[in-house]
């Protein structure tokens, strides 16, 4: 079953087309890597799917709802994490969890249990009462991921969640992602670390607002006759008009 469907989704800002007729499908429980250089249009595409931005043309369905007409039910079914981790620095760890649980409408009775569960999963029991600003970056990131899926959404959108973190923490972060996928949450993740692309079930590679390749990492490597995803990516990125990094 597909939980995300995009058909010729397009977004233009004036004469500039950030996302140019992209079409893809993501199945339930999949980890879908959405790759592309900076400025390729990844964030714009994610924003359209989350209902933060209206498409110029084309269609999109998330969790079975139309992104143009039904943004509200979509919001109840997705989690979202951007490059800036949306935690409140002057709130304690448990207060942040509680707040988002409240925002996502989790019943009061369950919030306590949910909070303990998250603290335990992260191994943060001792940091429960610490202000978030005192946490190291990697910890904040793990916490914000757990907070983004506190309501067990059907899909979670991660926009470059691992930029600026050390490899060991990135590794741990991916463990959390696998953990979420095991629980049936579909993961839609953008990244520019090509080693992370290997962790995904399928990846799409975007160049200049268009999807140039979409398949499993294994098939893509075969198709482009490459040793790793990095080489696949570079072959495609070379075609970029903008010639961004």
């Amino acid at each position, binding site marked *: 079953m597909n939980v995300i469907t995009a058909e010729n989704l397009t977004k233009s800002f004036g004469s500039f087309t950030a996302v140019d007729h992209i079409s893809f499908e993501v199945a339930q429980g999949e980890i879908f890597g959405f790759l592309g250089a900076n400025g390729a249009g990844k964030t714009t595409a994610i924003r359209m799917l989350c209902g933060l931005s209206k498409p110029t043309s084309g269609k999109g369905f998330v969790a079975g709802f139309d992104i143009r007409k039904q*943004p509200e039910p979509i919001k109840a079914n997705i989690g979202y994490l951007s490059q800036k981790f949306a935690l409140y620095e002057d709130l304690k760890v448990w*207060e942040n969890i509680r*707040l988002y649980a409240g925002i996502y409408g989790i019943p009061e009775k369950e919030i306590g249990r949910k909070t303990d569960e998250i603290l335990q999963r992260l191994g943060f029991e001792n940091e429960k009462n610490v202000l978030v600003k005192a946490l190291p970056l990697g910890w904040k990131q793990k916490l914000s991921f757990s907070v983004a899926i506190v309501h067990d959404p059907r899909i979670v959108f991660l926009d470059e969640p691992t930029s600026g973190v050390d490899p060991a923490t990135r590794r741990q972060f991916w463990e959390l992602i696998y953990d979420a996928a095991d629980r049936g949450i579909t993961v839609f993740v953008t990244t520019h670390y090509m080693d992370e692309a290997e962790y995904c079930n399928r990846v799409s590679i975007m160049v200049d607002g268009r999807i140039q390749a979409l398949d499993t990492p294994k098939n893509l490597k075969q198709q482009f006759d490459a040793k790793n995803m990095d080489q696949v990516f570079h072959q495609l990125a070379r075609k970029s008009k903008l010639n961004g990094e």
Partner: protein
Amino acid sequence: MQQLIAFIRKEFYHIFRDRLTTAILLLLPIMMLILVGYAITTEVRNTGIAVYDPSNDIATQAIINKLEASGYFGVTRYLSSPDEIEHVFREGKTGLAVVFSERFYENLMHTGEAQVQLLADGADPNHAITVTNYATTIIASYQQDLLKTSVSGIPYQISPEVKLLYNPEMKGAYNFVPGVMGMILMLICAMMTSVSIAREKELGTMELLLVSPMKPIYIILSKVVPYFFLSIINLTTILLLSVYLLKVPIAGSLFWLIILALLFIFVSLALGLLISSMVEKQLVALLISGMALMMPVVFLSGMLFPVENMPWLLRMISEIIPAKWFIMGVRKIMIKGLTYSSITKELLILGSMAVVLIVVSLKKFKIRLE
């Protein structure tokens, strides 16, 4: 509802964990009012007076003695000509000049009337009005004494003629209380609301809120409620301080004063929302609310400078400044003790400003980012 409560609680955490800001917000009105209070109460003691007394008779002597005996005044100079007045004021030791008319006692006895002129330095308006008020009262009490001992039954009239040098448009200390109220409420409601929303945008949390099922109206409400409470606290402190410390009574109806203040708070909150819907950064929100809101409140609301004396362009601008109408209304109710019928215009104007601003800012508050 649960969402809203969770979110309002979070706003209060923000406010109370930022102790410095909270302290400033709660203490600012107290500090401002106490400063104003001191300017009224302490300065009058031992004010130097210069006397021009061409009559030098028992009446003028008695008045001068009474002035000195009050403890508020001490004669520093006897002038030989009224022309010296300007000079003694420039020296700075004199706060009040008392000029008696010629043949003061004789006139008083025969015509029942005598003139005394009081001149004060209007460059310091608060001081000047207090000094002249005190002196006028003292002269009036002498007149009372005279009437009691009078056998002839002539109604003696000493008419003190008060003249303020340098600043004929007199602004009294009482005017500060409405002004301070206007400033503080505008500061807390507009500035703090806009900064706190801009902070969410800057940190990226706003994006997450907009992706969440949280209704935008809840986001707005949760931002507005805490600052509404803070401004109610401040309003109470200001009123208590002005009544009990500054002895500025609430002459009119407290109910209508509060209605007026609530309207003004709504206008200010809506202005804060409007500003925050236009900016992305806290600093910009701060600058805009500082420049575009606080400056007009201080300079164009009639709090410090009379609007009537301004060029027409500034007068036109002052018409659209909410604080002007608020301060005018507070003066009427609180100081002059007029009834609510006298502030219908102010209530209507502030009310329509509130409605228009709230509608516009709700419309402008974006659900989608672009």
